[in-house]
């Protein structure tokens, strides 16, 4: 069983999926811009992005259901670019499953084996149905099963062929929230058990982060950033990634000087410190930087007690515009001269009764939690407001 998660040594494996300069255009529309991507063998890889970002097209090019306009697809050492889908050692779990309505569950799962001329399929099919806990349903037709069961049949039908790569196209999109959470864990369990490479397409950032070892965030036909879920979350390199994965606050700042702890930035009247390693913008003095910080990293202190805040923390002042009690946390929206709607999530450990809308507060955080991005980008890229337009 191969469950290698170390991507640095993965290049040594023979089963990687390698996309080189692959692109897809429809007339004048470019669905996928030339793209290089390596999916390490045995990993759970997610392609994450909003609808129309090219993630499904990329997946279909790996499956052979879409012909790339340029570039190559390699599975291990084999160039499969010119192979039709039925000759590729790759199987797909389709969006809305595409189970054959005229065949029962057993025959659906046996389909791939039979097409490859394997005669005695019973043992394998039974085992596979047990793996997805559907042994009892073998003789039912797909429409007699619930959504979650159909989803498991689709996984079993693909996995039974022991593909080099399993492709999943929004496999959980049609399920309700509770079932989706359950199936996320289930799919992760199956992947660890069989050790096959999974490439999972989703628009749900939480789903991608829960399941995947590696996530490629896609936007407008390009990969914005590639990395482990924690890395993407903590070190986003574009505003799109920062906003699409969780939410972020941005302050426009100017580089003032270089101190011992990092870059010292001017924002409004105050100063902020940004570790150089976490800055992906230019570092020339006087240059503009977008300073980002996640809402949960910030502490809120009432202005009367500003003196008690330890030295060395980044701080900005503001007034609470709105607060909502969520249970585990309270979410504040703070109006600040440097940023009109600063979001802060405060855990409900000791609630200060003075922190109500209208209260003057100081927001402060550890400079190590600050990240710097190129200031020429759209601050709202990847937010829900932008997606709604």
């Amino acid at each position, binding site marked *: 069983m191969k469950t290698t998660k170390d991507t640095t040594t993965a290049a040594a494996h023979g089963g990687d999926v390698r996309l080189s300069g692959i692109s897809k255009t429809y007339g004048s529309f470019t669905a996928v811009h030339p793209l290089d991507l390596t999916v390490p063998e045995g990993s759970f890889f997610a392609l994450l992005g909003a609808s129309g970002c090219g993630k499904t097209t990329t997946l279909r090019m790996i499956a052979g259901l879409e012909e790339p306009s340029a570039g190559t697809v390699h599975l291990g050492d084999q160039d499969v670019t010119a192979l039709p889908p039925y000759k590729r050692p790759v199987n797909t779990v389709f969006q809305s499953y595409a189970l054959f309505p005229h065949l029962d569950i057993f025959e659906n799962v046996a389909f791939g084996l039979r097409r490859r001329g394997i005669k005695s399929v019973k043992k394998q099919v039974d085992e596979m149905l047990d793996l997805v806990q559907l042994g009892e349903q073998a003789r039912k*037709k797909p429409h007699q099963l619930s959504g979650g069961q159909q989803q498991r049949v689709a996984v079993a039908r693909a996995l039974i062929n022991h593909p080099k790569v399993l492709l999943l196209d929004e496999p959980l999109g049609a399920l309700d929230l509770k079932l989706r959470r359950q199936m996320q864990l289930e799919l992760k369990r199956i992947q660890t058990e069989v050790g096959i490479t999974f490439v999972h397409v989703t628009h749900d950032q939480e789903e991608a982060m829960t399941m995947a070892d590696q996530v490629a965030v896609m936007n407008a036909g390009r990969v914005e950033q590639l990395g482990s879920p924690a890395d993407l979350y903590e070190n986003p390199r574009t505003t799109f990634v920062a906003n699409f994965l969780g939410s972020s606050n941005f302050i426009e700042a100017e580089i003032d000087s270089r101190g011992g702890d990092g870059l010292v930035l001017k924002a409004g009247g105050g100063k902020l410190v940004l570790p150089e390693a976490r800055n992906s913008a230019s570092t020339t003095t006087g240059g503009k930087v977008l300073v980002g910080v996640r809402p949960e990293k910030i502490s809120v202190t009432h202005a009367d007690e500003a003196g008690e805040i330890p030295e060395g923390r980044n701080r900005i002042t503001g007034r609470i515009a709105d607060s909502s009690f969520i249970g585990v946390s309270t979410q504040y929206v703070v109006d600040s001269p440097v940023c009109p709607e600063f979001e802060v999530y405060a855990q409900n450990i000791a609630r200060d009764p003075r922190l109500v809308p209208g209260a003057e507060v100081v927001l402060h955080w550890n400079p190590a939690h600050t990240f710097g991005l190129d200031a020429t980008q759209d601050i709202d890229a990847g937010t829900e407001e932008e997606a709604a337009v």
Partner: protein
Amino acid sequence: MAVVNWLKRHFVVIAGLVTLAYLLLPNVVVTVFSFNRPKGRFNYEWQEFSTDAWRDPCGVSGLCGSLSVSLQIALWATLGATLLGTLIAFALVRYRFRARGAINSLIFLPMAMPEVVMAASLLTLFLNMGAQLGFWTILIAHIMFCLSFVVTAVKARVMSMDPRLEQAAQDLYAGPVQTFLRVTLPIAAPGIAAGALLAFALSFDDFIITNFNAGSTVTFPMFVWGSAQRGTPVQINVIGTAMFVIAVLFVLASMAVGNRRKKQKA
């Protein structure tokens, strides 16, 4: 008052039964009169019960010959129209080509055109081509007018088919031929069957176009029409009743199969 209320409550059932009676009454008459022993040459008045005609259905000269011609033409016309119609339907739904829009509307033309006009123009066409009228001209004509119905029936089915099913088959190692035989065809089958049944019924029934283009060949509807001038043998009712019974048995059998499947699933 009570009667009115009762009528109100059972209005749907009563309306249904009345409609059914309206539909079935002619069939009942056909069946009843197949057991008649008429006095003269015409089987229009009830005389006395007899099974003579049932014991000798081919007793009238030419009747069974015409029936056989009709069945042969209907079978071949069904086969031809279903095959061609299915291919056309798939082409129209699945592929984008030059005259697609035009073909899509032209395919309805034979359905819309008055039959007698088409019959006459077909005859003109055959005569100008120097074709000899008979079995083959009837068959060509029947395939032609059955096509539109098959295309319409199959097209509806193919349009509602999820193209991802075929992609899934390809993804699971089925080549183009296997994909068609194992997935596309079975899923389109109900539409194809509906088209075929329609084609058979239309071809077997047809009188006007057949009469124009038959030459000396006599089909069953032509035989009935011809004999109605001189007298109607009871055997015509026997054949009619038999056809009706076979059709009903066919429907009952398919319903029984469907029911059993449902029970198995439950």
